[in-house]
């Protein structure tokens, strides 16, 4: 394998690992703020109980997000020097604003949010919680601006092969940014909802039927049920936007080779990049045309239009894009079914959490990390779908790669993978360990903040 493919694999592994944790923290920050504010308003202990459990998960996820993020910021230099040399004038300021407006805000107020409740007044603690949540949202905003600009670049001119900014508002509000940002934030809220619902259902099942678990479970299920239709709608709009600016990607998502109308929506197929056709197609006639053009016989550009006269292929590999798109949409549909069914059961005769039968609780536990699956699948669709371009129409991925010897990249790739797999298992294990510990009643019932108090045997950072 050459340096290019290894660097791509390493980058994909790193960003995939990184994105897992921001997807949780972006929304969990707001969820914690919600618990905290509800407690301030009602004084009911159950909100604080929920807060105390989830703040631990937050701290853990945040640490994972930060350290893997630091890795990300070095990758540009170690593996993709050409990226910054070509579009640094645009990417640079965006990254700088992310660091200055978001990272420091989160990092400093995180300390106060986690450990400061007994040292600062309640309002300052609530403010710190807000600022952390706001900071994570800002991080997501700036990085999505950059990423979207890479998909739909505008507001710049090329001088001697280097991009120079001409209009910052065009760069920031590039055509795909609103959709991508909205879709990502919703993805984060859904990921977080299903995580909270799954872990709470787990605690409920093993007998930890406290008020705190009850409100967390209820809040999470209703949030998921409300947000998933919005997500599907925004996803659809996102797809329409992509069709306009990156038609090759949409053709790959649909597995659609020849330009034409009456395109079926393929439920199953095995795209064959060598033979340039699909095998074993099963589809719903005309539906893809209808979704993408809102007419049953609407014309959609096929992949064969993206091969240059000389036979150079200017579209991404079809199979990975085709499949990851289906995984994302499939997961979205599963989320829809589960969250609506669970809501209906809870609403029926107002039975609340008691209305959830065991199989439903098990299903929720199974869906705990469904948000991760959909998010990763979505990003694979987006990013692989942009290939061979790194910045659409401006530079290819190949032009950016560093000339580091392949064995060196391979060795770091393996090292990262080992560390990541270890940490990922530890992370999931510890979340469920904490849930079991809480259900046994340990650590519950500690007096509510913010009164300073000495506890001789308390573990630090807990």
């Amino acid at each position, binding site marked *: 394998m050459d340096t290019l493919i290894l660097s791509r694999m390493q980058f994909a592994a790193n960003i995939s690992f990184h994105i897992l944790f921001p997807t949780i923290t972006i929304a969990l920050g707001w969820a914690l703020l919600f618990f905290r504010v509800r407690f301030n308003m009602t004084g009911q202990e159950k909100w604080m109980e929920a807060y105390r459990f989830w703040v631990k998960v937050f701290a853990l996820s945040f640490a994972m997000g930060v350290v893997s993020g630091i890795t990300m910021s070095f990758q540009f230099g170690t593996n993709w020097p050409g990226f910054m040399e070509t579009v640094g004038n645009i990417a640079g300021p965006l990254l700088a604003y992310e660091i200055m407006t978001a990272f420091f805000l989160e990092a400093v107020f995180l300390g106060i949010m986690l450990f400061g409740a007994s040292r600062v007044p309640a309002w300052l603690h609530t403010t710190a919680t807000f600022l952390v949540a706001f900071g994570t949202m800002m991080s997501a905003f700036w990085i999505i601006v950059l990423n979207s600009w890479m998909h739909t670049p505008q507001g710049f001119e090329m001088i001697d092969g280097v991009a120079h900014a001409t209009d910052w508002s065009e760069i920031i509000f590039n055509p795909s940014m609103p959709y991508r940002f909205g879709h990502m934030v919703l993805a984060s809220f859904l990921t977080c909802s299903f995580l909270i619902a799954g872990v709470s259902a787990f605690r409920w099942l093993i007998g930890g039927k406290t008020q705190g678990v009850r409100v967390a479970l209820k809040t999470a299920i209703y949030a998921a049920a409300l947000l998933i239709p919005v997500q599907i709608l925004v996803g659809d709009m996102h797809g329409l936007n992509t069709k306009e600016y990156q038609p090759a990607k949409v053709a790959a998502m649909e597995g659609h080779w020849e330009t034409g109308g009456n395109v079926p929506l393929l439920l199953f197929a095995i795209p064959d990049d060598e033979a340039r056709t699909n095998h074993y197609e099963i589809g719903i006639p005309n539906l893809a045309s209808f979704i993408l053009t809102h007419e049953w016989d609407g014309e959609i550009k096929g992949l064969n239009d993206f091969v240059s006269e000389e036979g150079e292929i200017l579209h991404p590999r079809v199979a990975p894009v085709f499949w990851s798109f289906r995984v994302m949409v499939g997961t979205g549909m599963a989320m829809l079914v589960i969250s609506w069914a669970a809501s209906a059961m809870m609403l029926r005769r107002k039975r609340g959490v008691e209305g959830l039968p065991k199989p439903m609780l098990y299903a929720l536990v199974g869906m705990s990390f469904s948000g991760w699956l959909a998010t990763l699948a979505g990003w694979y669709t987006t990013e692989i779908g942009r290939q061979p371009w790194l910045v659409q129409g401006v530079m290819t991925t190949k032009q950016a790669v560093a000339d580091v010897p392949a064995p060196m990249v391979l060795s770091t790739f393996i090292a990262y993978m080992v560390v990541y797999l270890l940490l990922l298992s530890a992370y999931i294990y510890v979340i469920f*360990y904490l849930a079991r510990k809480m259900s046994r009643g340990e650590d519950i019932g500690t007096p509510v903040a913010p009164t300073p108090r000495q506890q001789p045997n308390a573990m630090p950072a807990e």
Partner: protein
Amino acid sequence: MYYFGDPAVWLPFVFAALMGLSILIYVILDGFDLGVGLLFPFADDEEKDRMIASIGPFWDANETWLVLAVGLLLVAFPSAHGAILTALYLPVAIMLIGLILRGVAFEFRAKAPAPQKELWNNLFFAGSLMTALAQGFMLGMYVMGLDWTWAHAGFGLLTAVFLAVGYSFIGATWVIHKTDEFLQRKAVDWAKGGIWGLVLGIGAISLATPFVSDRIFDKWFSFPAALYLAPLPLMSGGLVVWLWVMLQKMPYAQDRMSWKPFVAATALWVMAFGGMAYSFYPYVVPEKLTIYEAASAPESLFIILIGTCFVLPTIMGYTVLSYYIFKGKARELRYD
């Protein structure tokens, strides 16, 4: 945009200064919390908990200065960024894995089942060690001009060890300030050991630097340039002696002046760093690329600078607030 003369001249300088400032703040702030990790093997379980509590609210923000430093390098000097980081590919990867391990071990040690705490403690130490060694190695390689020869790598290994010991020194002074009683006395001993790493490290780099290039040699030893530099070694020497004398007598009654060793250590770092910056200016890749050649387009730098003028003071402000809130001896850290 032309108020202060040609922006292609002063903007690169301003950004080099900003970058230098964030590296300096980074090595001091993350230096002390990496140092705390390096001292882990010398502490027993309860002491480890207190040491962790002394850095808990800060370490995350401390590391963000590294992100800012690399960010500024990347933003302001893109071609230097590529050249430096590809040359240092392996040590960077080792540092990153080290940072990952210690960052997460910090969280896991308090949340994982008790029998596994030992494992995470060890990983916290291992991660801190990897990070410190890798950074020291990179420092040595950078001073030597980023060429991979055996001699240079050997020098890098030397600076790696010195920097690790230097970090453990500043870590120990932090522990002196943030704890009391037995642990504090222990930390005084650690500091007495660690100060040698710092002295040897600064010494080695000072000896090597002028011989890397004639240009730097001239800066150091020709009249009158030498006069500008002269106060640095003199003041550093004085500081070391003062620190040494002070450490012999610590801790003072009623914990007076427990902050002084940390401040003195910080001053030492500042001077060592100032000397390096003075020597290498105007190069960002030693002897190959100056900050003026490597700089990004002025209009991009300008738009960052505007933001920086507002944001950096704010960041400083709330960083100070956070140190103020968590002032005093480290207490048990709790999430409520």
